[in-house]
């Protein structure tokens, strides 16, 4: 038997060319289509009842107990099905009562009174009473998770079956904003008391818990006795965690799911161009967005010297980073309040100025020698790109850094104990800046080696005074001045080297409506933008 060559060169080449041609043909006949942004009601007519929506989220949640499980954006998205928050944001940018009928305060803002609506039932038929609200708030006050944020609460007292008084240790003007988030979701006391409650939630929400297979899917069905008559529109919702962002986007494009959320700029740009997909983003929405920035450890040399920090700020070409790594999509940032925020002002944050950076570096080097420190980020490929780009920018100013990639769990722990130099970080996305007190106050700044919620560890009496004013002052103009003062202090002292504002987007099949057009129970319009990726599921409907 004649043995021929194993692989004939010619046939191999033919095969390769054929495969490449197939791939090229498939990719080039691309999906060019109608790019639309805004899947909100408007021209689609009145909402229709019925239907089922499958949403793909960016992670699985830990559980449904608001006092025990972390509620990040995904957690809040899940919570919105089975629970209602006591308050919600309106289109006017103010906090309105939602599950609560009213939220009032005394003249000094030291006592807040939450009044509930009569006749609201939990999914198991038991009534919503002030006991339930008290159980939730007391649970939060004891919870290692949520108690730091509400440390200023002195006591929670039942006044009558539908009224609760929350007494503060100091005047607290912005307290209601906390009732729009994790602390405001009211779970049945049975859920809170049950050791398995976090996997079997009972709430007052538009949908009743049906089934949760962690990592696979969560299903909830319409609550027939929902206190908002006529809602929800949908019969059933299903959530599926799809961590890999490209798989999530493909699932939407393939029609496997109806709705997704994402913060990845490349994906957002890609989905805007895709056929049969509507995209809503939060670029224009008011309220604080999360920022991407380099967090500097102000207790660790050489970053303890303000000249070095200012040099870093001047050496960072923010626009270039956004254009190179983030597809040019998000705006670059000069402080914690972006252009759409009511607290925005010119902070005097250094522009990109390489000459200035070099001169600051030279000044420091005369005193203390060469500047060198560790630059850290997580294992994400995109973050590595940012860090490599910035390493090069800073090198041009004469600053040497070594890049260290750290896995997420250790990353956060390192920041907490101060075991880092400069970290690429993401934070400060609260709807009201009062909620940033724990991150910015000198009271939460601890020495290296101790757990410090103020990761940058900057102790600034001016910032403390401004935080106090922002918390206690009822005058919006004074609050505005206070937070603008903080932003200016950040620009002078540079504990953070700002890069960009993060963008959230919700992408869906065009039939999905009502994501940003909805009405509050008091009749006014609900917030018409995504608040860090959040939206009210109870008001979503399918236009079929």
């Amino acid at each position: 038997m004649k043995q021929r060559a194993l692989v004939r060169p010619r046939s191999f080449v033919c095969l390769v060319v054929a495969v490449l041609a197939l791939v090229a043909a498939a990719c080039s006949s691309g999906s060019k289509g109608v790019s639309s942004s805004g899947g909100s009601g408007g021209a689609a007519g009145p909402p229709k009842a019925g239907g089922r929506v499958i949403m793909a989220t960016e992670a699985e949640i830990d559980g449904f107990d608001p006092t025990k499980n972390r509620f990040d954006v995904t957690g809040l998205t899940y919570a919105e099905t089975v629970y209602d928050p006591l308050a919600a944001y309106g289109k006017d940018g103010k906090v309105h009562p939602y599950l609560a009928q009213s939220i009032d305060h005394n003249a000094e803002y030291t006592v807040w009174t939450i009044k509930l609506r009569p006749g609201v039932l939990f999914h198991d038929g038991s009534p919503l009473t002030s006991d339930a609200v008290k159980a939730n708030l007391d649970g939060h006050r004891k919870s290692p998770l949520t108690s730091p944020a509400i440390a200023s609460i002195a006591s929670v007292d039942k006044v009558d079956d539908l009224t609760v008084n929350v007494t503060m240790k100091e005047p607290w003007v912005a307290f209601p904003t906390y009732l729009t988030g994790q602390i405001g979701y009211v779970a049945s006391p049975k859920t809170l008391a049950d050791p398995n409650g976090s996997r079997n939630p009972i709430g007052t929400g538009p949908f009743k818990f049906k089934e949760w297979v962690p990592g696979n899917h969560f299903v909830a069905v319409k609550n027939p006795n929902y206190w908002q008559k006529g809602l929800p529109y949908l019969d059933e919702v299903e959530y599926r965690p799809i961590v890999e962002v490209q798989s999530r986007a493909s699932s939407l494009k393939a029609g496997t799911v109806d709705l997704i959320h994402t913060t990845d700029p490349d994906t957002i740009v890609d989905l805007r161009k895709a056929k049969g997909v509507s995209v809503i983003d939060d670029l224009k929405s008011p309220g604080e967005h999360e920022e991407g920035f380099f967090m500097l450890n102000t207790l660790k040399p050489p970053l303890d010297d303000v000249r070095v920090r200012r040099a870093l700020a001047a050496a960072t070409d923010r626009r270039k980073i956004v254009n190179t790594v983030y597809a040019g999509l998000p705006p670059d940032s000069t402080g914690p309040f972006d252009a759409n925020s009511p607290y925005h002002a010119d902070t005097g944050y250094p522009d990109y100025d390489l000459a200035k950076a070099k001169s600051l570096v030279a000044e420091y080097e005369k005193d203390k020698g060469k500047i060198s420190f560790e630059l850290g980020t997580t294992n994400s490929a995109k973050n590595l790109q940012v860090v490599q780009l910035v390493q090069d920018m800073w090198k041009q100013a004469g600053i040497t850094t070594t890049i260290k990639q750290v896995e997420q769990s250790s990353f956060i722990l390192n920041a907490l104990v101060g075991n880092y130099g400069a970290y690429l970080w993401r934070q400060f996305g609260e709807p009201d800046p009062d909620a940033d007190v724990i991150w910015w106050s000198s009271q939460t700044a601890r020495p290296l080696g101790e757990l410090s919620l103020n990761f940058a560890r900057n102790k600034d009496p001016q910032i403390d005074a401004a935080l106090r004013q922002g918390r206690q002052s009822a005058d919006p103009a004074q609050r505005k001045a206070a937070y603008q003062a903080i932003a200016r202090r950040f620009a002078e002292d540079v504990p953070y080297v700002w890069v960009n504002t993060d963008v959230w987007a919700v992408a869906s099949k065009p039939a999905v409506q009502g994501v940003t057009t909805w009405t509050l129970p008091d009749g006014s319009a609900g917030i018409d933008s995504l608040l860090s990726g959040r939206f009210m599921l109870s008001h979503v409907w399918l236009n079929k």
Partner: protein
Amino acid sequence: MSGRFIGRKVLQLVPVLFAVSALSFLLLNLLPGDPTVAILGPSATTEARVRLRHELHLDRPLVTRYVHWVGQTATGDLGKSYVSGQPTTEALRQRLPVTLELLALSQLLALVLAVPLALLAARRPGALLDRVSTSAAFGFLAVPNFMLGVLLVYLFAVRFRFFPATGYTALTENPASNLRSLVLPSFTLGVAELAVYLRLLRSDLIATLAQDYIAMAKAKGLPAWQVLLRHALRPSTFSLVTVAGLNLGRLVGGAFVVEYLFSLPGIGALTVESIFKRDYVVVQGTVLLVAVGYVLANFLVDLLYGILDPRVRHVRAAH
């Protein structure tokens, strides 16, 4: 099959399980960080973290914790997830069928395609079919599975909506949806195996076909298909079966990636997530399960030798 043979195999399992579980426990605890970060997030106080570590017994010495875990496991209690509170046995029970189905279908796909192709290729080495299948095999072997997966999703889920892009429907719920949801993942995972099996079987077949008894069978006038299937195939499958068994380890690793890509709620995805969250107890559970599965699979391979080759059976019986 003697009881002694089976008994010996079971006894071999025990030290393996100890070694694997002890090593993984050690490695996990060497990782910096602990579950408190995943559970409490960044905004918890020192006191809260210390208290939680104490509640979870994380402040006890390593050896004590391992011994405690062994004791618990021996009674069938694999503990609870630190993060979600879900009992590990429940999580494994929910996720094992998914991974098993994925592995089974991948192997099946690989074998169902590899065996006929190898037979046809070995029949006429160097012919067009042989060369094309060989080139394709090398091509598939060279492509990383995540890249192949992304490409398949783009082609067959997004461009042409034949299959879903992600997700899993249980077999008991809807068999048709179940199979549809596993076609692309099985192909992604199985295609590299296909290449290996094809090449392996092909070369073994060629060697077998050169033997005298094959010439004898042909001389007797038996049709080609009978010669191939009844006389040549069985003796040529030893390497294939060995590799298929050993491959399980590689497949499980590949399953981690494929499950992540296609969002399949299997053991792989669970293990990866739990490692990130430092959910030690859950990871120990999955590692144990995979170790048991691996040993069992190779045990089955040993049994299969006996079935495939009567000489092995007799040799064993003689001992």
